[in-house]
């Protein structure tokens, strides 16, 4: 068969991808024709791509060609795929060809291009998230995915046309784009020129007819309410009526929590934060907070749950910090461990245990795993050239060396990278190297190190079982990944590591602060953190209970969920599993690896050194409650793609979603009970409309469960907001405040509406518990929700507040965030606050203090004068009632000057209290 294509014809994308995916391109002849050439004899208008079959017949529909390739590979047709392809042909293509025409031929941008397709994109996103399937027609990628991916790729490969809020679409698109057949098709068709590669073809095409009218619509997709079957309604109503009685008994609290045979045993870890850094918001959402939501959810499901974390304390960075602050490494760890623990406590993180890695258990378990690897021949020795300072009598880690950059001649290049030219440097290549501690010149010495032999060749071993570690890891991954909930980015990272081949990994370092290596000749070395940090989970569990092996050597009974940011994926997905598989001790390996993307701060990155962004310890000084922080961070959780923290957006989400939507609904529901019914839940006589609402809420609740079971934390939060929106609408339409003044029937109706509404509020309080535990408890106290209903979230919407139930005192849940409050916070965290924080937390170590107090008295004098001057300018402007922006700009200058002054004087900066007067 022969495929006819044309340069820049978008249809080639799905066709080539499908050919690569299903057919094996070898048997396929490809001819390139001009865009106006008529290949198919019976068609008046030119059409490519076209597949000429061996029978002589032609396939001129892109989808039909793709379908044919899939059919040849043994795939069978199904309704859902048919539906997607029909939708693609009738809805997506007209919209898409309009968008591409605007973009490529007319050179339009932004909303002009996105407008026509937004609705179609939303439809795909909703379908993906509603069904909670990674792919359009099921658990594996298939025809529908390839056809839609190919259609969308030219537009969506430019991230600005992939709306941020469409998370499900985003991860679907990313997953497909990373697959080899798709990648190759994209390279062939777009030739790395992006969408412009389509120009020569699209220019020759007639203007798409869809441009003329009907399909070009900016309307957002209306809240699509599923059509309900009688049966669904009957089931939902029956469940509702059973009420509290249908709740299972509460499982008793155990201490310690241990796996129970026959139960769902969920072990949750979040990446161990490095001890000497105060975590910023991105660290918090990436690990501990995400894992906390899942742990709380898991407990609401009555799953047997253990959630652990702790500080990662060994390594060079701790040694450096200790030297800077004039403390011992242990003292540094003790100090910062407390800072970490306090921050997480403030954020209400529900660890069962928050431990640390510098414990005897860590040494014992790490050395045991090492001995087993050594005994099985998985460790090899090699020599590494390193700089050694003879004066300090130690090998120098990269960050302890400075010298002249071998590339650009910059004088203060670091041992790993030059700050001036940005090039990566191998420390031994530095010219005139200096030990940063004693300033003497180090010498190049070779040092013996141990390596984990990942690609160990099987023939070198005589023992049959001893096949290479890399093969074991791959085999394990092949078994684990399908059907698991590993996030798409984690799968992608793991796949590319495997594709590039696993190399031997050095597992030792010339340091003192670490787990000692139990081998002759290695007495002055320790294990490299990435070998033993992940073992920290085991040792932390061992410090929690001496029966830790019931969790960690029990792969059959334990479901291990590990949460982290994506940079940690290789250590959890390959390195630790290699050690554990090589140790052959039946270790529990990660079942679901949940990795987030990165959270940015406003338009840039969080930066410790520039003091940009909000760090864990500062969040509590803002006066904004922990639950609001949790809500907003979870709302923007970088799930599937990077996201950014924005103060303005936080204000907006707080005021719209929390205050006006959720808070308003719950408060009104409770107030109606108090005001109209004396605090007692009224009788409810459900009409068919009420039953339908009840069923919609049941379905949304089930959707929430599906999402959280797949750890789609951000998406599940939307279900909560959707339910409260339904609730608000319900109250608005039925107007109980009017009906209560009417006749008997009206009053009864007011009662039913109020009763159903307050039960929805009760349901929301439980669904909210993983996200906002304090608010959840407040609602439950206000409604006097019976204890079992507070701790269990069933899959059906139950009547948990039956008629006659007395509620407590209702009061508003949320506070409005004001513009000026947010502006001043934005100002405060926009840079340069680092010193403030360090000064407060670390009481300025001798070294940093020395660095900061170089300012002489004249400079301090000059700054003081400037501060006074600027202060007068601001006061004058305020007195004149000048333009707000102008004042803000001058205030910013003033704050900046004050900050400089504080730094020069070596004093902690006063926090701005100016706005509190209001």
């Amino acid at each position, binding site marked *: 068969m022969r495929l006819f294509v044309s340069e820049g014809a978008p249809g080639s994308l799905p066709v080539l991808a499908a050919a690569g995916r299903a057919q094996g391109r070898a048997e396929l002849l490809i001819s390139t024709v001009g865009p106006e050439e008529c290949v198919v*004899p*019976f*068609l*008046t*208008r030119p059409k490519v791509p076209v597949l000429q*079959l061996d*029978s002589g*017949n032609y*396939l*001129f*529909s892109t*989808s*039909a*060609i793709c*379908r*044919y390739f899939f*059919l*040849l590979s043994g795939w069978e*047709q199904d*309704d859902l795929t*048919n*539906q997607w*392809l*029909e*939708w693609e*042909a*009738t809805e997506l*293509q*007209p919209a898409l060809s309009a968008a591409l025409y605007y973009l490529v031929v007319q050179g339009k941008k932004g909303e002009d291009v996105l407008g026509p397709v937004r609705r179609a994109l939303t439809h795909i996103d909703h379908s993906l998230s509603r069904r909670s399937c990674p792919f359009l027609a099921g658990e594996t990628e298939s025809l529908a995915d390839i056809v839609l991916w190919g259609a969308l790729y030219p537009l969506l490969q430019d991230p600005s046309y992939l709306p941020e809020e469409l998370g499900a679409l985003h991860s679907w698109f990313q997953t497909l784009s990373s697959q080899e057949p798709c990648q190759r098709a994209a390279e062939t068709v777009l030739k790395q020129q992006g969408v412009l590669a389509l120009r020569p073809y699209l220019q020759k095409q007639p203007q798409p*007819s869809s441009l*003329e009218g*009907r399909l070009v619509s900016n309307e957002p997709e209306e809240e699509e309410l599923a*059509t309900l*079957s009688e049966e669904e309604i009957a089931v939902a109503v029956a469940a509702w009526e059973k009420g509290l009685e249908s709740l299972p008994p509460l499982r008793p609290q155990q201490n310690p929590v241990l796996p129970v045979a026959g139960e769902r045993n969920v072990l949750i870890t979040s990446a161990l934060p490095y001890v000497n850094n105060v975590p910023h918001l991105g660290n918090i959402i990436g690990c501990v907070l995400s894992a906390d939501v899942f742990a709380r959810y898991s407990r609401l499901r009555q799953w047997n749950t253990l959630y652990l974390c702790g500080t990662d304390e060994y390594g060079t960075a701790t040694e450096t910090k200790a030297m800077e602050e004039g403390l011992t490494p242990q003292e540094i760890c003790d100090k910062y461990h407390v800072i970490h623990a306090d921050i997480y406590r403030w954020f209400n993180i529900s660890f069962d245990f928050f431990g640390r890695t510098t414990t005897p258990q860590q040494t014992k378990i790490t050395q045991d795993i090492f001995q087993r690897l050594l005994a099985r021949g998985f460790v090899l020795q090699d020599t590494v050239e390193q700089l050694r300072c003879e004066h300090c009598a130690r090998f120098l880690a990269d960050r302890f060396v400075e010298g002249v950059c071998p590339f650009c001649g910059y004088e203060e290049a670091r041992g790993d990278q030059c700050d001036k030219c940005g090039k990566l440097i191998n420390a031994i290549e530095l010219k005139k190297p200096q030990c940063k501690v004693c300033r003497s010149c180090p010498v190049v010495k070779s040092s013996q190190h141990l390596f984990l032999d990942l690609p160990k060749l099987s023939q070198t071993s005589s023992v049959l079982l001893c096949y290479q570690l890399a093969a074991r890891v791959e085999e394990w991954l092949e078994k684990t990944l399908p059907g698991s909930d590993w996030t798409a980015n984690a799968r992608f990272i793991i796949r590319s590591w495997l594709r590039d081949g696993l190399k031997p990994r050095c597992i030792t370092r010339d340091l003192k602060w670490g787990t000692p290596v139990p081998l002759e000749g290695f007495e002055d070395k320790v294990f490299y953190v990435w070998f033993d940090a992940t073992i920290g989970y085991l040792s932390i569990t061992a410090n929690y209970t001496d029966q830790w092996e019931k969790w960690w050597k029990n792969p059959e009974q334990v479901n291990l969920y590990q949460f982290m940011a994506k940079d940690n994926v290789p250590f959890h997905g390959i390195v630790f599993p290699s050690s554990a598989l090589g140790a052959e001790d039946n270790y529990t390996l990660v079942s679901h690896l949940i990795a987030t993307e990165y959270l940015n701060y406003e338009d840039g990155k969080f930066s410790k050194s520039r003091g940009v962004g909000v760090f864990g310890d500062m969040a509590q000084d803002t006066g904004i409650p922990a639950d609001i922080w949790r809500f907003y961070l979870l709302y923007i959780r970088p799930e599937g793609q990077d996201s950014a923290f924005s103060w303005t957006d936080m204000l907006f989400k707080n005021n719209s979603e929390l205050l006006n939507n959720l808070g308003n609904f719950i408060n009104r529901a409770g107030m109606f009970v108090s005001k109209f019914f004396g605090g007692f839940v009224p009788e409810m006589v459900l009409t068919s409309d009420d039953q339908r609402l009840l069923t919609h809420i049941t379905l949304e609740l089930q959707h929430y469960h599906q999402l959280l079971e797949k750890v789609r934390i951000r998406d599940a939060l939307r279900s909560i907001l959707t339910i409260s929106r339904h609730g608000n609408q319900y109250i608005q339409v039925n107007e109980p405040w009017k009906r209560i003044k009417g006749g008997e029937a009206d009053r009864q109706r007011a009662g039913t509406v109020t009763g159903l509404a307050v039960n929805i509020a009760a349901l929301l309080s439980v669904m909210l518990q993983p996200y906002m535990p304090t608010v959840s408890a407040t609602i439950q106290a206000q409604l006097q929700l019976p204890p079992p209903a507070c701790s269990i979230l069933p899959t059906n919407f139950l009547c948990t507040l039956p008629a006659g139930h007395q509620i407590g005192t209702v009061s508003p849940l949320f506070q409005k965030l004001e513009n000026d409050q947010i502006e001043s916070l934005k100002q405060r965290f926009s840079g340069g606050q680092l010193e403030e924080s360090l000064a407060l937390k670390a009481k300025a170590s001798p070294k940093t203090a020395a660095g900061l107090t170089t300012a002489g008295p004249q400079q301090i004098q000059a700054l003081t004068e400037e501060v006074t001057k600027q202060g007068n300018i601001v006061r004058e402007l305020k007195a004149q009632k000048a333009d707000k922006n102008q004042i803000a700009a001058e205030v910013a200058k003033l704050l900046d000057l004050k900050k400089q002054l504080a730094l020069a004087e070596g004093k902690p900066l006063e926090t701005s209290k100016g706005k509190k007067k209001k």
Partner: protein
Amino acid sequence: MAAAAELTLLEKSLGLSKGNKYSAQGERQIPVLQTNNGPSLTGLTTIAAHLVKQANKEYLLGSTAEEKAVVQQWLEYRVTRVDGHSSKDDIHTVLKDLNSYLEDKVYLTGYNFTLADILLYYGLHRFIPRSLDV
């Protein structure tokens, strides 16, 4: 002919006794079928293929990979080109192309009657002058 009526007609010709109810969605009145044991199905050709399977007449969807692809190609043609035509000229082109395609064929797949013939017939019905409609 409205899509729902067309599908009801198809049910009859397939010998399906229990008639389904169809709702219509959106501006273009796309038919929706609520199935008993699964999610709803949307779209004329999707539902038609579903009915064919329900009637155990899968052969109407084609027997070989090639036939199956050809059937789906013409079903797509029906909903995009025939239903989606924007002018008289468009329809003229459609009729001309089909005529030239069918010159050496009995049915759209060659010699086997399939769902593509049924739906294309339904779709073209309104454009064919009465004298031909026997």
